[in-house]
């Protein structure tokens, strides 16, 4: 057929290879194919019409073959579509293995599968469209088959993804997780992939919650700062990074008071409130208050209409209103003290992480094991905390100001104290006087403020304590090789060494870091090695603080 051959009529093919259509061959009409390989269509062959295929391999479609029309496939292996074959139309598959789609086959349209293994999709087959699967193993998708679109599956194991396909899309990850549920390294891979798609619900929720917490932190800090602005402007982050420097002369006594009046609120910069408003809506938030807007996704997201039944995950997103922050953030009645505000924020952070975790587990059921959850949590925290840690720490520091100042003074006073001054037994000292005692542990503790995620900070602490034990063993062994077991150090030795190491770091803010870590250390780690190390460090810090 040539152009306009059957503009409004119907075409019925029963033979094999019976039609080769040109542009607009059946503009508004209908095409019914019963034969095998019956149609080879060109651009716009069935512009607004319908295509019904019953045969096997009946259509080989070119670009824009069924521009806005519908394609219904009942046969097996029935359509081999090229780019943009059904740009805005719909594709309904009932057969088995009925569609083999190429890149951009259904760019904005919809694909509905009812058959088994009905779609074998290539890269970008349905870039922005939707895919609905009801059959068993109905889609075998390649990498990036539906990069931005949506996929909803109702069948069992309905999406089969080649396991060798490199990381890209949730379906593949699901299969991978299913295949090797014990391989926890998969989880971090999944997350880095997941968060690289800013429009994925999990990435969206993450950003939204970060923004909410950030806004609260910002308000608390700026209020606290405004509160003490008259006295010493050096309220937050003012304590020098090295204790060798000057110590704030005026310990902030007033800082811990409640914010006194309304005028504090008015000093909150405009965009603070704007961010606040954003955080309780479901619109994209990157612009408003996110401290580090990741590159690429700052513009408005293409808003897709939300239709019922399709959006299991989006119900999570749609309900931020139901998740009001635990305390009113401002308003005339808000006279919360900084410690109270901090408590509220900590609670919000825990809630936020819980929410992210449940969303993730809903999306990837394979992760719902104890180990999987734990790994998930680690990844979520690693994504959640980095932009928030600095303001969070600032709040902790202003709450612990007096302690920190005392610690800083003590550190300054005992700056030159040697290991023996701290009560270390001589067997715990290096034999060679040239090398600094427990240098590696000092370095590890100095790394704590440079990390931005609680787990990583804890790792520094654990590393430091292990390093102390190694050094002690080495020093003891160098003196006396006969008794390696009795040389093993217990807390009687560890704490004096650690106190010495803490003193050497000259970092009084470790106190606030630890206070924050105590709050965000995973419950399961609390009685384990991490918990012990954190407790020991806190002990050492308060011991140094208490030194005369």
């Amino acid at each position, binding site marked *: 057929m040539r152009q306009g051959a059957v503009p409004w009529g119907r075409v019925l093919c029963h033979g094999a290879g019976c039609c080769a259509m040109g542009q607009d061959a059946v503009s508004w009409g209908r095409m019914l194919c019963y034969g095998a390989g019956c149609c080879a269509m060109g651009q716009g062959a069935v512009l607004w019409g319908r295509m019904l295929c019953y045969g096997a391999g009946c259509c080989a479609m070119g670009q824009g073959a069924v521009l806005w029309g519908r394609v219904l496939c009942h046969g097996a292996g029935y359509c081999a579509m090229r780019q943009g074959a059904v740009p805005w139309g719909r594709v309904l598959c009932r057969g088995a293995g009925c569609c083999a789609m190429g890149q951009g086959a259904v760019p904005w349209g919809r694909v509905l599968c009812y058959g088994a293994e009905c779609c074998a999709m290539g890269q970008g087959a349905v870039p922005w469209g939707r895919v609905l699967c009801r059959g068993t193993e109905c889609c075998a998708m390649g990498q990036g088959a539906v990069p931005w679109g*949506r*996929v*909803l*599956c*109702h*069948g*069992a*194991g*309905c*999406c089969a993804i080649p396991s060798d396909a490199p990381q890209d899309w*949730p*379906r593949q990850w*699901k299969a991978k997780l*299913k295949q090797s549920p014990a391989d926890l390294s998969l989880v971090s891979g999944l997350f880095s992939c997941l968060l690289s*798609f800013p*429009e*994925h*619900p999990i990435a969206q929720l993450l950003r939204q919650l970060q923004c909410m917490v950030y806004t609260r932190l910002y308000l608390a800090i700026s209020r606290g700062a405004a509160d003490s602005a008259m006295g010493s402007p050096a309220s937050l982050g003012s304590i020098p990074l090295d204790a060798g420097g000057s110590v704030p002369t005026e310990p902030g006594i007033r800082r811990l008071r409640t914010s006194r009046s309304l005028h504090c609120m008015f000093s909150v910069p405009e965009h603070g409130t704007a961010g606040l408003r954003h955080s309780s809506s479901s619109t994209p938030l990157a612009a408003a208050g996110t401290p580090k807007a990741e590159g690429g996704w700052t513009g408005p997201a293409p808003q897709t209409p939300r239709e019922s039944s399709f959006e*299991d*995950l*989006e119900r999570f997103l749609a309900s931020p209103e139901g998740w009001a922050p635990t305390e009113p953030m401002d308003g005339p009645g808000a006279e919360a003290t900084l410690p109270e505000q901090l408590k509220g924020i900590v609670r919000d952070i825990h809630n936020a992480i819980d929410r992210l975790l449940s969303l993730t*587990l*809903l*999306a*990837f*059921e394979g992760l*719902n*094991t*104890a180990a999987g*959850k734990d790994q998930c949590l680690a990844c979520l925290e690693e994504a959640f905390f980095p932009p928030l840690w600095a303001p969070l720490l600032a709040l902790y520091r202003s709450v612990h100001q007096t302690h920190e100042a005392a610690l800083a003074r003590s550190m300054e006073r005992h700056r030159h104290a040697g290991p023996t001054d701290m*009560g270390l037994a001589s067997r715990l000292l290096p034999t060679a006087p040239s090398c600094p005692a427990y240098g590696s542990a000092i370095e590890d503790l100095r790394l704590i403020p440079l990390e931005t995620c609680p787990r990583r900070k804890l790792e520094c602490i654990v590393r430091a*304590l*292990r390093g102390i*034990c*190694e050094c*002690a063993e080495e020093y003891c062994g160098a003196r006396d090789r006969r008794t390696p*077991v*009795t040389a*093993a*150090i*217990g*807390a*009687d030795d*560890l*704490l*004096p060494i650690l106190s010495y190491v803490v003193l050497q770091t000259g970092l009084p803010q470790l106190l606030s870091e630890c206070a924050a870590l105590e709050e965000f250390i995973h*419950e*399961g780690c*609390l*009685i*384990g*090695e991490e918990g*012990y*190390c954190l*407790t*020991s460090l806190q*002990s050492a810090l*308060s*011991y140094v603080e*208490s030194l005369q």
Partner: protein
Amino acid sequence: MAAGAGSAAGGRSFSFKVVLLGEGCVGKTSLVLRYCESKFNDKHITTLQASFLTKKLNIGGKRVNLAIWDTAGQERFHALGPIYYRDSNGAILVYDITDEDSFQKVKNWVKELRKMLGNEICLCIVGNKIDLEKERHVSVQEAETYAESVGAKHYHTSAKQNKGIEELFLDLCKRMIETAQVDERARGNGSSQSGIARRGVQIIDDEPQVQSSGGCCSSG
């Protein structure tokens, strides 16, 4: 995908925190090293040496993970005690039978522990160094009477000869399991998957509950 035998029956596992208290030279380090190293390996148990040790046990089908926290015995660190022993399920208070002073210290700790943690913590008072029986300065009678009076159990050990240590820990574990179970029953009568009540004790059902959710797989 879904299901996968979601029934959460099966054994349980307990995680307990045990804090180790005792003056400088009473031998608590050797005691705990003995316990965690004997038989199995001579290598390091953990990388924190004797400060923090873990041990896994199986007691009547119940799996127990012990985390043993050593504390500094020196007087100058005394004020730091509470931060170590909060949320402990058990405490082992070690004294040296040849050193009357170390027994006095134990008494102080007992008072403190009872004040801070109440009766939920299982206390073990341990007279170590029974290989030096000839030099004994703390009478068995006195120690046992005292232990009974404060609701603690008394044990005699020798880290040097590896005597009484296994029994000490086994007994402690059984008592901690009992306490945890009583605690759990009192708390949430029968709700099997009740979470962690106190921060210290963790009772974990073996099979994680399979969460039911909407579609078989779903994402954006």
